[in-house]
């Protein structure tokens, strides 16, 4: 019973749509199949995505392509040190008649239709902005002009580059925990791919590249319904539930699970994180992955495929190890997956 049952024909149809969506994105972003797959999973899990990576690896291009293929309204802001929450909500200016005006800002401008909110360089924005974003992500609503605006289709995509540390503000734990995934992007390592990226004029003009992507492949308004159907349609067995619980305790207490990393005191490594919300996100993402693979049951492989991206950014290490986060966390995730027996 590996195939989705005929009764779930809608799910099967939607899977074709999702695969077409991936193919469209892949036209603009090459050598990033994994990042594309994860973004697709995030869309159908209705989760927010944090993209992280070097400068110029295609984070913005990927998000622009996603926004184009996803349909719905799209807004983009750049994080800066002097940005304040009001700058996101209100647009203040002097009109032609010389009087000050206040109009809805980038967040409110498209109101309920807003589906992709793209926050560039999120770590340049101040914590005040982060906390606004926190509410926007968690409740998909914001208060302005004495009323509450709701964004039922909203998905936040943010990116941050990991090179600079000056004049940046690390995302607070609560904000980070609300992202479904943190997807790391690296430049492709395949020499042929690298040659193409360097010499093919197609990749020199980002705007033209984005135009290649078909518009509105996915009907944004119906994603919520199909996302719920996926969560109900993919079966998780008791054995898999046990596996998840084992994974969870292993990542919280790696020392007790018998995991050892070089130069790390395992008992004093993890300070917190791996919240119940995080594990729920993990299952949500894994279910979408199972559906994309054409299965109606959740397998450990699905969990493994999304585990680092959904769990690593919500684990908080002791300050001693926080500086080595980039090397410790992938190793920890790998060790947990290699250690915990499945099934």
């Amino acid at each position, binding site marked *: *019973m590996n195939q989705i049952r005929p009764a779930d024909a809608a799910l099967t149809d939607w899977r074709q749509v999702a695969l077409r969506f991936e193919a469209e994105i892949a036209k603009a972003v090459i050598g990033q199949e994994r990042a594309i797959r994860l973004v697709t999973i995030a869309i159908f899990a209705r989760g927010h995505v944090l993209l992280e990576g070097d400068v110029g690896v295609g984070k913005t291009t990927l998000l622009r392509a996603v926004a184009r293929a996803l349909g719905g309204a799209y807004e983009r802001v750049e994080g800066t040190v002097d940005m304040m929450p009001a700058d996101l909500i209100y647009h203040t200016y002097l009109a032609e008649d010389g009087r000050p005006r206040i109009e809805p800002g980038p967040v409110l401008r498209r109101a309920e239709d807003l589906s992709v909110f793209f926050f560039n360089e999120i770590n340049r924005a101040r914590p005040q902005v982060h906390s606004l974003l926190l509410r926007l992500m968690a409740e998909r609503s914001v208060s302005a002009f004495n009323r509450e605006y709701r964004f039922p289709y909203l998905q936040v995509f943010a990116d941050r580059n990991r090179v600079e540390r000056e004049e940046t503000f690390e995302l607070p734990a609560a904000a980070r925990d609300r992202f479904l995934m943190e997807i790391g992007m690296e430049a492709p390592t395949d020499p042929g791919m690298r040659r193409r990226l360097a010499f093919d004029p197609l990749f020199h003009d980002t705007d033209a590249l984005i135009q290649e992507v078909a518009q509105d492949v996915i009907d944004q308004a119906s994603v919520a319904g199909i996302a719920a159907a996926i969560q109900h349609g993919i079966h998780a*067995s008791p*054995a898999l539930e046990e596996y998840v619980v084992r994974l969870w305790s292993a990542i919280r207490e790696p020392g007790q699970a018998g995991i050892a990393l070089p130069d790390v005191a395992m008992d004093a490594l993890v300070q917190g994180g791996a919240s119940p919300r995080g594990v729920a996100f993990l299952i949500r993402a894994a279910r979408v992955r199972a559906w994309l693979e054409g299965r109606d*049951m959740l397998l*450990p492989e699905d969990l*493994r495929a999304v585990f680092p991206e959904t769990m690593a950014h919500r684990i908080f290490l002791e300050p001693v190890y926080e500086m080595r986060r980039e090397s410790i966390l992938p190793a920890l995730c790998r060790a947990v997956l290699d*250690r915990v*027996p499945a099934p």
Partner: protein
Amino acid sequence: MRTRAIEPPRVPRESPVVAMAGLLSVLLSGLLPLPAEAQIGAVVVRSPRPFGLFVGDRFGATVEIEAVDGFAPQAASLPKPGPLTYWLDLTAVSVAPGPARDGNRLWRLSLTYQTFYAALDVRRLDVPAFTVTFASEAPRATTSAVAEVPSWPIGVSPLREIQPPPVADPVEYLRPESPNPRRDPALPGALAWAFAGLGLAGLLALARDRAWWPFRHRPARAFAAAWRQVRRQAVRRDAEAAYREALLALHRGLDRTDGRRVMGEDLAGFLVRHPAYAALTQPLDRFFRASREVFFGRDPSLAQRDWPMPDLVATARRLAAAERAANAGGHS
């Protein structure tokens, strides 16, 4: 008449009878120069062992008779096999001419006796004397001569033990001990150790090859351990639970072989890393499908229908065999 008497044993050892065994032969000889019968020369009785005879023993004697050439013993005059006395039988007689020398020929009479004397003590008995008639072989000759073979003694011994003569000091009954042969235990000892070591080394090598204790938990023999567990599960009564446990055992075998958790999607990579199991691609694929059904599917009973327990057991056995072959070949 010339006679050589039996010499009494000088150093009696265990018993007089055995002591007499020290003498190899006894030569009794009788010279019977009868004046009227000049044709007969010396008569010599040779008895190889005229002592230490028990009831029922056979003993032989050779009688050498010197006769003038041309005379031969008359067959009718030879002693007849049969009882001679109440205690002695003659069982066989044969006569043969010997070499001729100085006009005389030596005739050799071979006699076999059997004694039935049930002696109660060691005693001397006399084998009865007899005569042999020699006749001229010339045509129409009538000359004959009689050779007289004298009686000679034999010593018979009782089957029962004999009371030795009383002595003042009982210690004198004890014979001096024969010196123990001094054997050097070094070589047999060294050989024993060597063979024990060799055997142990062989056993260790076999245990290592078969992943027996203490090599059970070698990482290189993960499938051997899995196969043991699967075999144990195969005889369990609770088929459903046994199937699950057997699947888990195989999972752990794969995990330990690869040093990480091997899931269904990793099968291709696993086979690339461990080409020894390439022949088992299909069974391993079915194993992962069955495992998915059992552990993660909606209906766990489906798996046993598609891939029954005997298939699982056979796959486990083939994996263990492939593992052993791979390790023997030095790669895995």
